């Protein structure tokens, strides 16, 4: 009983400090092959908008972490970088990474917000950790605003496949506010030579009896820009007939424009394209300068993934296809005639 009292007293004290000071955000920085993911850089921008301190968290194998922290400390807006390396973090699994996050964020933690990109890895880890700490999480936010006086944070996020926008507030009763960030809604944080975030080592938490182990990973290789971050995208739908036509029609156009290739769910399900190319509610959400939709009718699930693109160009035989309602430039024509002509005339 005595112990409990002492404990809650300490907690009250901490709370007072927490309200007196500004937000203290922890951003989970993901990386691949020595490069920080651009989605994480957008998450960092969102974290900066809270108006307080921002700390980065880098996990990985020791060689990777050494490289990443040298880059990470140059990131604008980061006050410090926590890093932890362990063979178990080389391929992070929720079961092996969560214990470290739980330890870092449990009683006495200075952090008020935990932020990541809305990536497949973070989507797997963050809710698991939030549940352990008994706090809700907010997914895929498109804006964030923190009110220091009431210690509440307000977010907007798309719901119903982007057909409605919900504004939600995490009140002060939620001690740590977890959220994932829609990367297309925030510009990536930049690197600056002058910046020098403080580096702090964090002891890894060894999980000796992880119930999951990694067997293999197979990544789709591509020389083209990555779909999630490309500034131009050429995307194909069911009208592309088969995998060969999909490639022979779209790839030359994508190459001329320096664009990434995307696909509708119909094209992916029919086996024309790999599922990592899928744009839509259940695939990637993109917002490039140019989105060219070829032979895509424009189901709401697809529109949810691309309607924030700056310029949408649609080519479709069906004049009533819903894609024309969002397209800035629409052409009713057979894509098999349009694409070669387009390539020819763009070359000039």
């Amino acid at each position: 009983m005595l112990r409990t009292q002492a404990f809650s007293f300490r907690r009250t004290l901490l709370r007072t400090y927490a309200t007196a000071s500004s937000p203290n955000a922890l951003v989970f920085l993901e990386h691949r092959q020595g490069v920080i993911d651009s989605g994480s850089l957008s998450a960092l921008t969102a974290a900066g908008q809270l108006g307080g301190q921002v700390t980065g968290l880098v996990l990985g194998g020791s060689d990777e972490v050494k490289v990443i922290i040298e880059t990470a400390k140059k990131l604008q807006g980061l006050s410090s970088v926590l890093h932890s390396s362990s063979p178990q973090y080389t391929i992070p699994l929720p079961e092996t990474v969560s214990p470290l996050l739980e330890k870092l964020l449990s009683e006495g933690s200075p952090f008020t917000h935990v932020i990541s990109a809305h990536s497949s890895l973070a989507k797997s880890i963050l809710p698991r950790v939030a549940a352990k700490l008994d706090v809700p999480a907010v997914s895929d936010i498109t804006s964030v605003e923190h009110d220091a006086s009431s210690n509440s944070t307000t977010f907007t996020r798309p719901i119903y496949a982007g057909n409605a926008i919900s504004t939600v507030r995490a009140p002060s009763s939620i001690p740590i506010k977890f959220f994932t960030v829609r990367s297309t809604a925030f510009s990536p944080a930049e690197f600056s030579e002058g910046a020098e975030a403080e580096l702090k080592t964090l002891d890894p938490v060894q999980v000796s009896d992880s119930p999951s182990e990694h067997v293999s990973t197979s990544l789709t290789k591509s020389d083209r820009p990555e779909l999630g971050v490309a500034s131009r995208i050429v995307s194909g739908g069911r009208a592309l007939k088969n995998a060969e036509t999909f490639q022979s029609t779209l790839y030359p156009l994508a190459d001329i424009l320096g664009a990434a290739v995307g696909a509708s769910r119909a094209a992916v399900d029919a086996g024309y394209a790999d599922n990592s190319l899928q744009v839509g509610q259940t695939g990637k959400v993109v917002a490039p300068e140019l989105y060219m939709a070829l032979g895509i009718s424009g189901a709401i699930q697809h529109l949810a993934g691309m309607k924030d693109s700056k310029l949408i160009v649609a080519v479709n035989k069906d004049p009533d296809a819903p894609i024309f309602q969002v397209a800035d430039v629409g052409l009713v024509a057979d894509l098999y005639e349009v694409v070669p002509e387009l390539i020819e005339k763009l070359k000039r």
Partner: protein
Amino acid sequence: MRPSAARLLNILVPIKRAVDYSVKIRVNPQQTGIDLNVKHSMNPFDEIAVEEAVRIRERLKDAVKSIKVVTIGPSKSAETLRTALAMGADSAIHVEIPDSAPPPEPLGIAKALRAVIERQKEGVDLVILGKQAIDDDAGQTGQMLAGLMGWAQATFASKVEVNTADKVANVTREIDGGLEELKCQLPLVVTTDLRLNEPRYASLPNIMKAKKKPIEKLSATDLGVDLTPRLETLKVTEPPKRVGGGKVENVDELIAKLKEAGITAVKA
């Protein structure tokens, strides 16, 4: 430990009644939510979850002891449970919440599911959920449940192979940029991605049979959980409308529009 039953799988499939995916939704004038007087059906990812449970039984036969479906929702969610029973689940649990209650959050649902699991005398070996519900698009419940239970989790699964003898499952997951395979010990929480399977339609005889299958009714109080949302929804609004720019007649006009926007070829 359960000496002989240990090799028999008990599968639990949590499902959600959501606005049908084909409905074009409308925000209500009070901006408190969307107009819900529209067609509802089972969340599409949950249909895939039910289908997977049934397929696991078809593959493993008697090794699957039970497939239970559970929903936490208003009275009408019972229809969704019937659909799942018609697809091949054995029995159902309906944690009924008042029709007027605000929709619970993933954390509340995960706690309710934990309480449901703890009530199962024979235990639960495998929980299969959809990767996200298409109404709130949160995508958290499965991971939260795995965290609360301290179980293995395999999210965004596109292939699941259960080995009952060793009590493990090999799961292929869809990750950014490709696929990943994991070997997970049971008990395990799996969340389904679209490509896991193609859900079946319930046949008329199965729909009739489903009417006789048991649905256990529970309340949040029975489970000792509080489903009150902790996040406050301030308002729900329409997204900014995109103005379609109209159509062009030919490729030349299309290229002119591209040039206007500063988009030209990067290589000749």
